[in-house]
């Protein structure tokens, strides 16, 4: 167990962390971009955003705050799974695949690495909470960290699923712009579902990330401000988010267990 599962997983996890800290531009890119978005959009929309019942009576900076955190998680998760493609190109992945470890170890090591990084970056942003006037108790914090962990895990796994068969990082960027960014835009992170048109609301309803954002929003603003109508309840949000994480992981494990024919010539 220790030799065949835990230590191999830990070693692959550790490698992700070391690599991240040795590529400082990644830290800056994954954290600075969303913060910049938050500051620019937060103040830019401050005037036009109707802080009425739709947003639960909060200003746009407050409304956009959980969305920004999810964006940090998404960016870090995506960039950490791009390394799946690099690993294959550089040959590192082949060496791992011929080692006597289960494929779920290979998958888990990679994903937990990305999850940890995404969670770490999001926690840096969480440190801004007091400046928004948020008073979070220990219980709130535990819940917020747990939710961020599950969202980070699910998004990293989603990135892994996309990257696994991808031959180039350019292809990955295309998918990112086509799927992942819209997924984030239509998750309630950027604007509330209540103000959207019918079909957009339907998309937001089936978007699993909607529930991650809702869970985070509800746990951040629990008891302080109302989060507005059309935001799923905390229980439903947590349930859907956990389900999303489990399903993506099972898919990733099954995908990685199949022979990998691309790029191993």
């Amino acid at each position, binding site marked *: 167990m220790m*030799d*065949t599962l835990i*230590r*191999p997983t*830990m*070693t*692959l996890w*550790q*490698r992700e962390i*070391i*690599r991240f800290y*040795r*590529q400082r531009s990644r830290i800056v890119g994954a954290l600075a971009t969303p913060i910049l978005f938050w500051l620019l959009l937060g103040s830019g929309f401050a005037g036009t955003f109707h802080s009425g019942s739709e947003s639960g009576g909060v200003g746009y900076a407050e409304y956009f705050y959980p969305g920004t955190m999810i964006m940090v998680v998404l960016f870090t998760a995506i960039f950490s799974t791009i390394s799946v493609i690099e690993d294959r190109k*550089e*040959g*590192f992945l*082949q*060496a*791992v*695949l*011929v*080692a*006597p*470890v289960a494929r779920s170890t290979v998958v888990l090591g990679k994903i937990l690495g990305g999850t940890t990084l995404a969670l770490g970056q999001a926690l840096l942003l969480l440190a801004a909470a007091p400046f928004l006037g948020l008073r979070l108790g220990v219980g709130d914090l535990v819940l917020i960290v747990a939710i961020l962990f599950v969202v980070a895990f699910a998004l990293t796994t989603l990135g892994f699923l996309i990257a696994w068969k991808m031959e180039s990082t350019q292809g990955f960027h295309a998918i990112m712009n086509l799927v992942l960014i819209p997924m984030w835009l239509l998750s309630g992170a950027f604007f509330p579902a209540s103000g959207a048109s019918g079909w957009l609301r339907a998309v937001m309803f089936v978007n699993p990330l909607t529930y991650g954002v809702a869970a985070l929003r509800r746990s951040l603003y629990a008891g302080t401000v109302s989060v507005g109508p059309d935001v799923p309840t905390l229980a439903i949000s947590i349930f859907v988010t956990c389900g999303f994480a489990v399903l993506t992981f099972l898919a990733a494990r099954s995908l990685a267990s199949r*022979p*990998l*024919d691309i790029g*191993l*010539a």
Partner: protein
Amino acid sequence: MTVASVPSGEADDILVVDGLRHSYGETLAIQDLSFRMQRGEIFGLLGPNGGGKTTLFRILSTLLAPTAGRASIGGHDVVREPQEVRRQIGVVFQAPSLDVKLTVRENMVHQGHLYGLHGAALDARIDEMLGRVAMRERADARVETLSGGMRRRVDLAKGLLHRPALVLLDEPTTGLDPGARLDLWSYVSDARKRDGLSVLITTHLMEDAERCDRLLIVERGRIVALGTPDALRESVGGDVIVARTRDPEALAVAVRERFGEDASVVDGALRVRRARGPEFVPQLFDAFPGQIEAVSVGKPTLEDVFIQYTGHRLWDGEA
């Protein structure tokens, strides 16, 4: 493990390939390959690009399941018992499989952890293996700062870290200068002497092929020759006459018509293989006065063996 003490020839075979076949869709990459490799043997796999070498290498390294047939390493089937096989083999890929952002030692530690090694025993093993390839002083250097030859040495040390019974080397000397190539071979022979390591190597270089105990030549997925370098050279027999001329194609046709010899053009030169080569040279000059610029006569080399069996040069410079 009592396998080593069993005296029967079967048990001494580290690798058994039996009726192996693989197709990618319609394309048959290898067909009905069967051969055995003894423990402690250095076994060379030669073949033109696209001849099936890579497919065989991937099947043996458990990355690809064959369409039909069996292959077993150390008595374990590569398809049914991949984890057992993985413990038995060390794989050194054509492109070094090192993480360039990590140091040499970090790479080795991760490798050890993947193979169930850890703690002080792993540290000692890492020091020993890096010492063997003369990379101990650079243990704390990031791999991205190392030369190609150094990376290759670290990659070899990494592949041998868990003391595999069989190491699979895919074109390990590609891109190395002659000195580095010589070094790599001395590390490989050293590991064979000390640990009884068996070595399966794919190569397109004559110098590498010469160092193998036995060579297997595959072309279009089939075995075309198998034997020791000496036996293969003898099987070709005769002498090889190479003549430089302005129009080798025309001369080849003329030689075929005039002498009925098997003349071909390889590398822009006329090539004739026949018995009693030295006697043929004056005949050649008499028959085609003024056309031949230079001529040499020699015993067949492994290059000739390869040309004889496959119709290709071993290395045509492309790809």
